[in-house]
Structures are given as C-alpha cells and as structure tokens.
C-alpha cells in the first residue's frame, strides 16, 4: 500500500514541477513576498512590534488572495483532467486500490503546493526575520498559510471528483474562490448592515469561510487591533479572546481540510 501510494505521490510531484502553474505561482509569490517583507518590515526599527504587524498584514492579504488559487488550480485538475483523458480509468485498471490512487493524489498535490509556497514565503520570511521580525511570528504565519493551502487542496480535490472535465472543475473552483474571498467578507458585512443580522451569524461565518478563518486567525495572533481585525474580527476576539480565536481558526481550517477531503474520497469511491 505505502509503496504504491508513494509512487502516485512522486507522479503528482513530478507532474506539478513540470507544470507552468508551479513556476508562475512560486515566482509571483516569491517576488511579492520579498517586496512586502523588504519594504514593510522596515517599520519594525521605528515602531517596534506593532508597527511591523501592520506592515505584515500585507503578506497576510497576499497569502489570502494567492494561496487559495495556488491550491485550487492543481487540485481541481488532479482527478477531473485524468478522467477526461481516460488516464484515470487506465490507472484504476492496474493492481491498485481506489484508496491508494486517491491518497497519492491528495498527498502529492498537497506536497507540490506546499513546496511552491515554501519557496515563495520562505524567502520573504527569511528577509523579514533578517530585518527584525520575530521568527515565531513568521513561523505562525507559515503555519496558517499551510492550513489554508491544505483546506483549498481538499476543496479542489472534492470538486475534481464531482466533475467530468478539468475546465468545469477549475471554473467552479475559481467561482468558489471569488465567493469566499471577494463576495464573502463584503457580502456578510453588507447583510449585517442592511438587515441587521445577529452577531452570532457573523461569528459563524468567520469559521465557516476558510478565508475568513485564516485572516482572523493570523491577525488575532499578530495584533488583535480593531483596525486590522475589522468589526467582525473584533467581535470574534471579544468573545473568544486572541488565543482562543487563533486556536478556533486553526481548527476550522483543519476541519476544512478533513471534511472536503473525506467527502472527495466518498465521491471518488462512487466513480465505480
């Protein structure tokens, strides 16, 4: 079992390293991260920790926009593309189990995405640390970025098992990303102001939307300040405290990894 799963992981990794998305996303993330870390972290010397935190928010927002896309693109292709080309049927006709194929793809895509992220964020983080940012904060940001990426890999894989073509899976993934990133936060705020939704709905939305979980989780750990958290975040931190919010956001992202991943597995088994 382990040997064949490893083979699929290696195959996914090799495919990702060959693919353009890996180079483009790594490069863009690397450059943007380096720019933000170089110019943003300059505030540390003048304003101390709090000054840095505001500048570091740039990196957080960069991750918030890029990481879901980086994860969705290869994950939505992973199964749908091979199904479309007939390769999936041929793979499953070999002496392997459905579980080995699915696990290999899930882990392989996750490792490839994390590798691209590590290249981009690793360089930015190193510059930030050199310029005086505490390594613990960089590690914490990296940890949340990993959780966000894994959540969107699992979501993408789930979509990939449900669709017959790569194009359709990717389109649904991008629409989902738009809803969660752009419309999600904005929409819930508009609804809150327009219809006066109860505060509990806002709190729930924070943990139901993985992008919001990431944002609130990182910012509450860095600097639980209203200007960065926003009214929703401030409300959540007010209820659970900064550490409680960070922990709950981490758990929400972990759940976003486990649940779509398992749902994808159930859908994958039903391919037969």
């Amino acid at each position, binding site marked *: 079992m382990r040997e*064949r799963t490893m*083979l699929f992981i290696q*195959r996914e990794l*090799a*495919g990702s390293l*060959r693919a353009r998305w890996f180079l483009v996303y790594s490069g863009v993330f690397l450059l943007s991260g380096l720019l933000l870390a170089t110019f943003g972290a300059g505030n540390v010397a003048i304003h101390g920790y709090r000054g840095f935190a505001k500048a570091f928010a740039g990196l957080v927002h960069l991750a918030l926009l890029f990481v879901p896309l980086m994860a969705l693109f290869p994950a939505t292709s992973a199964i749908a593309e*091979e199904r479309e*080309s*007939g*390769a999936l*049927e*041929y793979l*499953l*006709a*070999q*002496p*392997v*189990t459905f579980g080995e194929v699915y696990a290999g793809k899930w882990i392989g895509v996750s490792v490839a995405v994390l590798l691209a992220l590590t290249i981009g964020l690793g360089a930015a983080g190193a510059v930030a640390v050199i310029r005086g940012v505490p390594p613990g904060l960089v590690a914490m940001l990296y940890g949340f970025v990993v959780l966000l990426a894994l959540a969107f890999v699992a979501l993408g894989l789930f979509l990939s098992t449900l669709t017959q073509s790569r194009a359709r899976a990717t389109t649904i993934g991008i629409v989902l990303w738009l809803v969660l990133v752009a419309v999600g936060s904005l929409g819930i705020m508009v609804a809150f102001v327009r219809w006066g939704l109860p505060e509990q709905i806002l709190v729930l939305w924070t943990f139901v939307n993985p992008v919001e979980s990431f944002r609130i989780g990182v910012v509450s750990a860095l600097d639980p300040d209203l200007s960065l958290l926003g009214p929703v975040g401030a409300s959540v931190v007010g209820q659970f405290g900064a550490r409680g919010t960070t922990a709950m956001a981490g758990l929400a992202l972990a759940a976003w990894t486990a649940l779509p991943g398992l749902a994808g597995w159930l859908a994958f088994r039903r391919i*037969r």
Partner: protein
Amino acid sequence: MIRARSLTKRFGRQRVLDDVALDVGAGERVALLGLNGAGKTTLMRCLLGLVSFEGDLSIAGCDVRSDGREARAHLGYVPQRVPHFDGTLAEVVEFFARLRASNRERVRERLVTLGLSLDEHGDKSIRELSGGMLQKVLLALALGEQVPLLLLDEPTANLDPRARGEFLRALRQIDRQTTVLLASHRLADVEALAERLVVLHDGRIVFDGTMPDLWERVGAAVTLWMRVPASQRDGARDHLHSRHGVPAVVANGAAIGLKVGHSAGADVLVELRRVGIPIEAFWTEHPSLHELLEGILAQGSGERAAGP
C-alpha cells in the same frame, strides 16, 4: 481463468448486462463480439473492477469485488481509447512497470519486439507518439511480467489500417499460455486472433462457440471475388454456374463473385485453375457483424451452440 455467474449490470432501469454466465479457461483466446451498446465494454469494466455489478465474477480464483487488486494483478489491459499521460515515454514506462511490479528490462524487451526502442523513443514526450505506437506501449506494459490474462477492449478501433495491421501482428506474437479476451466489432480482427466467439446482444450472450460453429449456425457464406482474363470471364461464369448453381454466381464489373462456405474458397480457386482458367486476383468479402447477428437472432436468442 474467468468465471462469471448471474452477472448483471444496470444503469438506472436499463440492464446493460443481463444474467451473464461465462467461463474462460486458461490459454483460451476468446472474442467478445457485439454491436455498439451490446455490453462488451461493460463486461470488461466489470472484470477490471471499474463498475459495480450484481452476481459473481472472479479472475484466477480472485473475487473481483472483494479482492480486486489481486484480481487485477493477474491481468493486463489495453483500452480502446489511448489514455493521455504527461512525461516522456521512458518515464511512463518506468512508472507503470513499478506500479505493476514488472521487470523493467522485460518491458523494454517487449517494446523492442513490438518495434519500439526506448533508446530511440524514450526521451520523446508521450504526446508526440502516434496512436499505433501508444497502443504498442500499452500492450508491452500489459504483458509486462507475462500476465496470465490479457483484456483487449477494441484496441484497434482508433487505428489507421497500417497501424491496425502492425498491432494485430504484435498480438499474434503473444505467448500461447496467455488467456486473451478481445472485445471487438470487427470480424476480421476476431478471425485473426480468437478461436472462440462470445456474441453479446442487449447484454445477453446469444452465441458462444467457434467460428465454424457460427458459420454453420447462421448459414452465412463469404463471397469469393475473382478476377480472370476478360476473354475467359464468360467461360469461368458458365463453369461456376454449372458447378455451383446460377443463384450463387454474381458479377460486378470485371470480377466474378461466388457465395461459398466459410472455408471452401480455396477449393473453388483450385478447381478453376484445373480447368485452365487463370486467376489474376481474388479476395473475400465477409458478411457484416450486423448480418451475422441478424442470423443468430433469427434463430432465437435462447439457443446456444456447443462451446469448446
């Protein structure tokens, strides 16, 4: 090698396979014949564990449903549609050889015997290879460590005539110990490779027997077309009229056609030469699969010819 009992597959309310019972012994070469939608590919997909089904199905004693991986370890598979992979030919061969725990050198040798050298083509992207070359790669991978069962699902359906000829030649080289199950709707492919025919229609087996059994059952004949010198055409026709009866002889431009029994063509050619009529060219024309099926169905789908 293959044992199916009460094998039924439904898609919604439609039964694509309907209570199929089939035994294929070790070393047999069996062709699954049928029109599109007859259930050939579904039967293959059941054997591969790619679809759920009702009934019992085993390969080399391994239950396909509960022990699918072990069952698939006994077989090699060449699909109708060539799957598209990323990477070079060498990488793809390496991956599948490792996945199937095959000896890579053996696969490499198989490729050479099929006319494909990894030294020459190994660095080429798999997408650069022609359909015929890819089918040969799949055949080499399928045979790998001399698997006991080879499943071929219309492997020549998308090949041009030249590639098809090469692929069929390659198939004829397969070790006699290997059991072959070939799904096809081309009678010519089947004649070249299989000794036993299983004809499916609407998900049911309507014929199971040898090729001569089939000809005898449906009373079908091949048309032997002959081209003789123009000066002797009337003489040849008269001779054939007198020997075989008027209705059997037809003319089509310069050629004379005669309906003969499945294996009687050679006798006719010898007979004409014996009476001094030279044969410039000859060819045979088989009845279509559709015509054969009509013949089988006309006799009642419940009837079964004696199996081998």
